[in-house]
């Protein structure tokens, strides 16, 4: 300790020298604008460099935290993407139905729905969709998808509806050949969920395989022109008086998820009303 004090006393002038030089330099930078600005700029550069180094080191040390935050953000974005995709699909489902059949379905209202359960291999297959009376769905409304006809609403509850698809032996849909305009009734006959049959096609009708089958608009359920399937084979009916057409259905019931219910098809009602009005007019004239 004594040695240390001796050493300090012996070299005190060094400390005083440094102190006096420091005071001189402080006064120099303070009272001389040029030297002050040069010092300030240089000091800024040095301090800036030191800060940058500190910041680099700190940010490197904080990478773990940053990664965790990014991971969390990724999770959030991922779930947002899923949600948005879901919404997009929902919208596309509606738009696709309308777009694909734009010319056919113009003026009709559709309610998009999702198939939540369905059977394929029973005699009377049924399908449940996630929309019901709350969404304006009533029994006897037509159900279509972007590929074609799906079936007819059978029962509705507030939030769900039961649909009788084409794959039901009790389902009968009026249809026609697109090119020849000959019409018949489509009825499924168990078995293959991709094949259905059109009966009562007159024998003079020249039907060829590959012809398209569509709704004819005679029923009060579907407007005319909605595709159903394509003729695969032309057979004789069991009584031999007409043809029975084997039709490959456009709708793939095995993968069907998104459907649309036609909620404002009023043509038959309108026609009936108009006919009634006509008859009334005629009776008045007489």
């Amino acid at each position, binding site marked *: 300790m004594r040695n240390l004090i001796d050493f300090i006393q012996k070299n005190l002038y060094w400390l005083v020298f440094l102190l006096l030089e420091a*005071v*001189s330099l402080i006064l*120099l930078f*303070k009272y*001389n604008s040029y030297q002050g600005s*040069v010092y300030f700029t240089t000091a800024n550069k040095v301090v800036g460099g030191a800060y940058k180094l500190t910041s680099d080191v700190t940010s490197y040390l904080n990478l773990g935290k940053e990664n965790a935050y990014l991971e969390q953000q990724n999770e959030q974005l991922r779930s947002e993407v899923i949600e948005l995709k879901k919404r997009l699909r929902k919208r596309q489902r509606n738009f696709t139905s309308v777009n694909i059949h734009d010319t056919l379905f113009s003026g009709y209202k559709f309610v998009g729905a999702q198939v939540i359960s369905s059977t394929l291999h029973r005699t009377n297959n049924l399908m449940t969709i996630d929309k019901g009376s709350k969404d304006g769905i009533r029994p006897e409304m037509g159900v279509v998808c972007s590929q074609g006809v799906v079936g007819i609403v059978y029962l509705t509850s507030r939030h769900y509806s039961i649909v009788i698809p084409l794959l039901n032996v009790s389902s009968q849909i009026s249809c026609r050949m697109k090119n020849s305009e000959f019409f018949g009734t489509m009825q499924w006959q168990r078995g293959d969920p991709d094949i259905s049959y059109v009966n009562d096609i007159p024998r003079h009708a020249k039907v060829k395989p590959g012809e398209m089958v569509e709704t004819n608009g005679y029923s009060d359920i579907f407007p005319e022109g909605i595709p159903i399937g394509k003729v695969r084979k032309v057979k004789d009916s069991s009584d031999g008086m007409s043809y029975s057409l084997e039709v490959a259905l456009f709708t793939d019931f095995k993968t069907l998820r998104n459907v649309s219910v036609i909620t404002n098809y009023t043509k038959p009602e309108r026609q009936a009303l108009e006919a009634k009005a006509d008859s009334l007019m005629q009776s008045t004239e007489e």
Partner: protein
Amino acid sequence: MSRAIIHRLWKLLVVLLLQLIILNHVHVLTYATPVIIAYVTMNFQRGASRLGLLLWGFVTGLLYDVFSNTMGLGMCSATLLAMMQPLLLSLFTPRDAADDMVPSMRTMGTHRYILYAFFSMLIFHAVFYALDAFTLSNWTLTLMAMGIGGLMAFIIVVFAQILSPSKN
């Protein structure tokens, strides 16, 4: 107050007046000005207190700066010279010189004193003009100012020694 200190203060006053009234208006090449305020500091006796020497140098520089509006330049240079004075003195002092020798042509010899004065003035002006320029651009001009200023101050110091009636 000892006679030596009064004598030094008197010398400082004369040097300061000479510097402020005459030499501060001499600008060789518009840049180099001789500064002789360190003259008193460099003539401190051998073995003088280093702390006292440092404070003397600092105050001398402060006085110069206050009146010349060069705050910090003179202080820094004069303090550095005060720090180096014992070293320079030991380099040029004859071996048989007294321990309390006061540097002068008579005590050190003309040749030694000239060298001592030259290096002292050179160091002072080097620091002074380096701080004044405070940049390495135009370093030739700075070097010229150091050299010319130092040389002129050295000449003045030598003349002052020659003309000095004092034995100190």
